[in-house]
């Protein structure tokens, strides 16, 4: 099934009290050549990074859980294009893409995956637990749904300090059924907190499809009883994400309260590295890849418009591969944390 677009969204416009009359989630942002190149490069970095992480996992360099973001790149890249300095990002355990999009170093992320001292958490956090004060990235959380309350707290802090920053709280279709999500919705709406709730609906909560777990499968409407407007967005098209992000950010920044964006997306890989993904057909995955791949869409547009030649795109690909290869080399050669680190960072 292709992601639903405007046809299914427009009927909800009136009920959802849109931020603007034309805010349907189906808007496509106008991308300049530079926008397209930037989006292409950022998405490609996540794709290649995750492919490499998958490889290193298979080679035993990465342990534990490792959840890859492949297929969902347009969501975080599109959202990030709408942010300004000081806006915060928080997400769950499928977090590598978010960190790269926030500008955290590929070396730091990869070395954390391999549990080395040069990792962003000195090797003590791992795949699911990385943070960056400098980039306003607040993790990286392994408890499904916890980041929604925490992200609401980030927004609370913005309002408390009287700044105009917004907080982006990402979670999946699975987390959307957790109780604290609705506790957070209630408080965010009650206090008009500047938080954008981004439901990355990739159709499967681990192995359970949305329809098997959710009574209301339109996640954009999950805030309706709190009066939180919500929109479905084609999460495979970075321009649609950017357009929705722009409007949502503007809505939040001017003090209107929280907003929900449901990103209709898809993960190509299993839930984690150890998931054989037998709950869906190979055809389903293949169809998404061939018809809706977020990176191929940008590439095709650029080639069609003559904004980039195949050679130029290959050059970008090479640069990205070099960054990833460098991060992988670093992550394999960097030493493990000193044993003294066992007892540090427990209390200040």
């Amino acid at each position, binding site marked *: 099934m292709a992601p639903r677009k405007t046809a299914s969204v427009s009927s909800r416009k009136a009920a959802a009290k849109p931020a603007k009359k034309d805010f349907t989630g189906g808007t496509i942002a106008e991308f300049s050549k530079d926008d397209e190149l930037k989006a292409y490069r950022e998405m490609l970095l996540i794709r290649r990074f995750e492919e490499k992480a998958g490889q290193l996992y298979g080679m035993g360099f990465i342990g534990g859980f490792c959840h890859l973001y492949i297929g969902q790149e347009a969501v975080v890249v599109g959202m990030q294009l709408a942010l300004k300095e000081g806006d915060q990002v928080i997400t769950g355990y499928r977090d590598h893409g978010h960190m790269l999009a926030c500008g955290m170093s590929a070396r730091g992320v990869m070395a954390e995956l391999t549990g080395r001292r040069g990792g962003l958490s*000195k090797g003590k956090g791992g795949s699911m637990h990385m943070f960056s*004060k400098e980039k306003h990235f607040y993790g990286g959380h392994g408890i499904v749904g916890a980041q929604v309350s925490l992200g609401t707290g980030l927004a609370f802090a913005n309002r408390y300090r009287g700044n105009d920053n917004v907080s982006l709280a990402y979670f999946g279709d699975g987390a959307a059924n957790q109780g604290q999500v609705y506790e957070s919705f209630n408080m965010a709406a009650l206090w008009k907190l500047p938080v954008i709730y981004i439901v990355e609906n990739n159709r499967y909560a681990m192995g359970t499809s949305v329809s098997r777990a959710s009574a209301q499968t339109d996640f954009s409407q999950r805030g309706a009883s709190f009066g939180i407007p919500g929109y479905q967005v084609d999460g495979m098209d970075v321009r649609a994400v950017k357009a929705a992000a722009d409007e949502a950010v503007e809505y939040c920044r001017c003090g209107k309260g929280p907003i929900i964006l449901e990103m209709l997306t898809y993960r190509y890989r299993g839930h984690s590295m150890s998931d054989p993904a037998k709950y869906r057909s190979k055809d389903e995955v293949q169809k998404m890849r061939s018809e809706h791949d977020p990176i191929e869409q940008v590439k095709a547009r650029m080639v069609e418009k003559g904004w980039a030649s195949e050679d130029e795109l290959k050059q970008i690909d090479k640069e990205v591969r070099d960054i990833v290869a460098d991060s992988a080399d670093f992550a394999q050669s960097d030493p493990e944390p000193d044993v003294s680190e066992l007892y540090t960072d427990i209390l200040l």
Partner: protein
Amino acid sequence: MPVEILMPALSPTMEEGTLSKWLKNEGDKVASGDVIAEIETDKATMEVEAVDEGTIGKLLIAAGTEGVKVNTPIAVLLQDGEGAGDIASAKTEAPKPASAEAPAPAAAPVAAQPKAEVPSDPAIPAGTEMVTITVREALRDAMAEEMRADDDVFVMGEEVAEYQGAYKITQGLLQEFGPRRVVDTPITEHGFAGVGVGAAMTGLRPIVEFMTFNFAMQAIDQIINSAAKTLYMSGGQMGAPIVFRGPSGAAARVAAQHSQCYAAWYSHIPGLKVVMPYTAADAKGLLKAAIRDPNPVIFLENEILYGQSFEVPKLDDFVLPIGKARIHRVGKDATIVSFGIGMTYAVKAAAELEAQGIDVEVIDLRTIRPMDLPTVIESVKKTGRLVTVEEGYPQSSVGTEIATRVMQQAFDYLDAPILTIAGKDVPMPYAANLEKLALPNVAEVVDAVKAVCYK
């Protein structure tokens, strides 16, 4: 026969209250359910309803009277045909409280505690004036002082603002600091604990009040997985400077779901500090320290202690160190280690034992994590005998932890096995007699000390 109306117990821990206002005068007719008076308890101002019909014959307690003990006759209600001459023959009948809250039993379940002799902490300058305040006031003063000093400090929780605190701990804070910094939350423990931790991760210093720590079980994931572990998981980049506070442990007759001590629970967790004060001075000095602490601090209070008074040094900025025990009473024959409400048993037992010729040293642990074991071991080196006292469950208790560590680190100094007095290994029963049995008592502590002294 005329009916005596008695001072009602309107909260589980109420022993006395203020009869703030009569809403009926002598000679007024009242029907069942009429509000006849307003009473200020240790928690709130409550309305008292008449149970029976009749005419108010006499108001026995004047409006504005403070310290009216529960079950004191406050008025006489005359039945049809009775006059002033019948007042003397009145029989007793207790009114019912207007609220849905279950009244406490007629007999106050917890005897008034003797005022503790609190030795001055060494840091207090000689000649400092000591003022007697309740633990409740000490906690409020601590929060107010820290909020005045630092705009990043705010308090959030259920009923903390407009209601003035379910237990009146936040009384007056809304008026002084406004709704930005005194934040009423919905009944949403899991959610608002997460909101607090998120705000703390940005550098704000929230004080999250749980109406009781029993409700914090809904929030325990955010406390442990988010607040306690973030500093470690981020390699020291960010943590959560946050205080989770509220009453823990048994109150009085509130049964199993509202009566358990969380000291041992939270003391299990690396990344948390756990404080459980007994005196008002410790409550104030340690809460101020907790608010300033860059780590998440679990601050366990006790509903029964809220109304108890202690001397607190009158200093502009009275802060005590977290992680330091306090020698409450110096002795040589045996050591009792306790904390929080457990200290009430320890202190009384020490007095009884003194009369029997046994000189007990009483240590108030004050902080459960990090635990001040050196102070305990120094005492054990002197006395050779150790008894621990707490209200929590016996298995994996704070006492068993102390016993293990003292056994490992001071085995050669022990002249007897360490005895641990704790609550019984049962959910808290409701029935008054069973509840009493489930909690530790002074006699148990006295017996335990005599046992380790082989007397």
